[in-house]
């Protein structure tokens, strides 16, 4: 299995769940289908879903919930 590092497309605040009282959208080890929502980045009062561009297995997150991220910063590793 190869491992790909997926980068943040935009800067902002990274969230792993859709709302503070909801479970994480994905956990490490989960299977990922193309189009699955991995997390959310908030910037300019807009929430952008970060969708998987290919299927695989989520190996690990490289940022924490509510971390500030820059565009191009590694977000997570995907086993493909």
């Amino acid at each position: 299995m190869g491992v790909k590092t997926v980068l943040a497309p935009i800067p902002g605040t990274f969230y792993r769940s859709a709302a503070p009282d909801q479970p994480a959208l994905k956990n490490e080890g989960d299977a990922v289908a193309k189009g699955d929502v991995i997390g959310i980045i908030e910037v300019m009062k807009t929430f952008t879903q970060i969708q998987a561009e290919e299927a695989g297995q989520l190996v690990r997150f490289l940022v924490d919930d509510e971390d500030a991220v820059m565009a191009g910063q590694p977000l997570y590793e995907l086993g493909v």
Partner: protein
Amino acid sequence: MVIEVIKPGLRTTVQDLGRPGYHHLGIPMSGAMDRYALRAANLLVGNNEEDAALEAVFAGPELSFTDRRLVAVTGAELPPKVDGELRQTWEAFIVEPGQILSFDFLKKGARAYIAISGGIDVPLVLGSRATYLLGGLGGFQGRGLATEDRLQLGQSMARTPKSTSVPEDLRRADPGEPVLRVLPGLYAHRITEEAARGFYEDVWKVAPEADRVGYRFRGGRPLQFVPRKPPFGAGSDPSNIVDAPYPYGSIQVPAGTEPIVLHRDAISGGGYFTLGTVISADMDFVGQMQPNQKIHFTPVDMNAALAARRVEAERLERLRSHCV
């Protein structure tokens, strides 16, 4: 004669130099957040500098071309690609019919200006093609671009550009540890001297909410206000005043906690005190700041503000004589 939007990016709008003259009616100036970059992009492709181009924030769109055009991308370091092949920013390049313009990840800055020879031909509204998103005014149907939009382009370039690239010294200098220069006023007397000192000492970070309306900052100490009995018409919060006009660049601090620098799409008046105004020479740079970027504010007097404006005006003159 048209470009087709395959992907809009995060928020891409049609902008020109703005819509001055209606601020007293509550209609903001709008227009490019980084006006110098917009002018440079237009000059590189042979447009008039006030022509309409695209402003893309944080992420670029994907656009399909139907005829041969000259394109230039300036402002943020958002590397353009033609059919997947990288092109340079601050340089004009040709896009052929059927080719696709897309963008790599943002490397630096916040807003890229994409000028296309002929300009974006949307109707003039109150004398401008700029998009005012909150008011649904101007630009392409008063909104940001969406997938499948077809943007009409102008006929042809106004002239043949003299140069196809902007030299390094005429691009935005990397300010390193950026400082925003502030002319104190109009309501600076509302905070204590110690609070004013603290405001100019503290490190502030751009909040993720920062947008075309205003740039919000966090991280500094809360401001202490001079005690007073609220005047008739002002609210009870010490940061409230009797409603007054807000200049472009003015810094309001609601409840004394998070400063907001009002930018191109800001409302023209309201009931928060303003402790100063970011000088016009630094406003383009505000529009290029990313979330979480650290900055300082520093007070300057009117002479320093006017001298800084002259430096900017001279740089623009050098850009013009290089390109035209």
